[in-house]
């Protein structure tokens, strides 16, 4: 089975966000970048799918030269080859999806994995956009996946539970935490990754539909008050919730 997995290169979740000099993006000074956490579940599921059905796993990423680090991480986990669709500029979700769809079209995988969202812009839509551009079926926010012949049955997380979705290949799956336990790259895997090929080509040009006007820091709450250090503070807390905050 031909399998693709799309990954993004994002600031570490422990990053303190500072608005950059352009007022529209973050200040990247001193920011450590990592493989998007949700993409780890996507890679793991791609590898498990390969182990079950045979085939190969291609990793794709849209962005700058630095994204190769993230592609290498996926190769070290066990993916077979990588493709960097290069663009020095940031793109909106549709721009990323168009670049990926164009490349995936020529690869022709039966299944494409994404993380359910990237933790930078928190857009949880690139997987769906790519699927629609390719006319693939799509199931998002997946926590359980079963493929049987041409049939795909997945559970996706929704409010208050899970819904079980049935569809057919070819399919795009976006992975949610809980889908699997991502493996660590072994030393052997890291060494092997050095010999694997990362293809590089320019991402197809596309017109953005979203224009960012500015980035702000949210209005942070002022620290309130500590009303006590033991259970004798409880009646006062309940009174404040009732009379001052009016939330109960």
């Amino acid at each position: 089975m031909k399998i693709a997995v799309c990954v993004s290169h994002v600031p570490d979740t422990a990053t303190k966000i500072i608005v950059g000099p352009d007022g529209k993006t973050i200040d990247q000074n001193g920011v450590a970048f990592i493989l998007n956490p949700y993409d780890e579940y996507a890679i793991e599921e791609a590898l498990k799918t390969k182990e079950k059905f045979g085939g190969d796993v291609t990793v794709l990423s849209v962005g700058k030269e630095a994204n190769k680090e993230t592609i290498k991480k996926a190769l070290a986990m066990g993916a077979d080859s990588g493709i960097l669709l290069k663009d020095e500029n940031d793109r909106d979700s549709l721009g990323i999806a168009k670049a990926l769809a164009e490349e995936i079209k020529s690869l022709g995988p039966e299944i494409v994995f994404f993380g359910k969202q990237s933790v930078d812009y928190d857009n949880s839509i690139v997987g769906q956009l790519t699927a629609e551009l390719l006319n693939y079926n799509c199931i998002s926010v997946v926590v359980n996946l079963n493929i049987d012949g041409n049939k795909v049955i997945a559970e996706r997380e929704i409010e208050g539970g899970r819904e079980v979705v049935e569809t057919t290949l070819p399919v795009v799956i976006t992975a949610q935490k809980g889908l699997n336990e991502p493996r660590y790259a072994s030393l052997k895997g890291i060494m092997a990754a050095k010999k694997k090929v990362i293809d590089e080509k320019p991402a197809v040009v596309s017109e953005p539909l979203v224009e960012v006007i500015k980035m702000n820091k949210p209005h942070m709450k002022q620290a309130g008050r500590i009303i006590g250090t033991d259970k004798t503070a409880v009646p006062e807390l309940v009174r404040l919730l009732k009379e001052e905050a009016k939330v109960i």
Partner: protein
Amino acid sequence: MANKILVFLEQRSGNIKKSSLEACCKAVQLAKELNYDFEAAVVGGDLNNVESVGRYGIGKVVHFKNDSLKDYSSSGYSKILADQINQIDADIILLSNTALGKDLAPFISIKINAGLVIDCIKLEIENGEIIATRPVYAGKALIESKLLSNKKIFTLRPNVFPIVESDNKQTQVEVVQVENPDLRSRVIEYKKSDGKRDVAEAEIIVSGGRGLKGPENFNLIEELADSIGAAVGASRAAVDAGWRPHSEQVGQTGKTVSPNLYFAIGISGAIQHLAGMSSSKCIVAINKDKEAPIFGVADYGIAGDLFEVIPALTEELKKYKS
């Protein structure tokens, strides 16, 4: 341009969701400011009192009906709605940013060639253009953006936009029977989780963290939550330790929430957690370390032993509720 807004009503078991009413109210308000027409669309089987949206100013609802569309089908719903948007030539489309709305909106956007901004917490008109504000980096920053396409889709974060009754209208419901819906992808079963309430939709959340010391002590959190009808949440530390399911995780790799009242219990307040909950309207922190960062965002804090404070709080709230 037809100068028209279409608002999508989401139903579950035939009932319109509360978050869709929030989208209705925003649609009515935007329509007034822009001098636009507006109407609603809903997809499903039999519906219960869809006419009640009249109370929020919606005069017309088109109900696309077929029993096989009772549950969500991304292929079916997106095709029907894209056709309807083109049919009535709507140029602004509002959905709520629920699990369904987030899944559905991008499919529609490609079909109708529209730009899309998801998870908006503010939509305002400046010089005739809609400016959408949404959180990024799990709420550590906000971006304001506008769409450059003719057709524009926005999904609205639940629990943020107010529901206001206005211009009580007699709602006209037009039923359209759908022939042969596209069911290539469809929901075949719903599995309700064991938890009683979901953090994503709750007005009150009680979250526990590593300070609970073990999964067996989460009964303290559950009892407190039960006493005030709250949902149970958890910090990443508690989820990664396997104490609680991921569906309860609040924070950057979990859910971003903004309930009316948030209790953070035995949670120190790592930046990833603060990002996911600091927009809550009122925050109570209970933690024995008075230097914990969580107190920096809390309205009220008790810097004490949670094993002593929580049972007392549960009792006090039970007393208050009865």
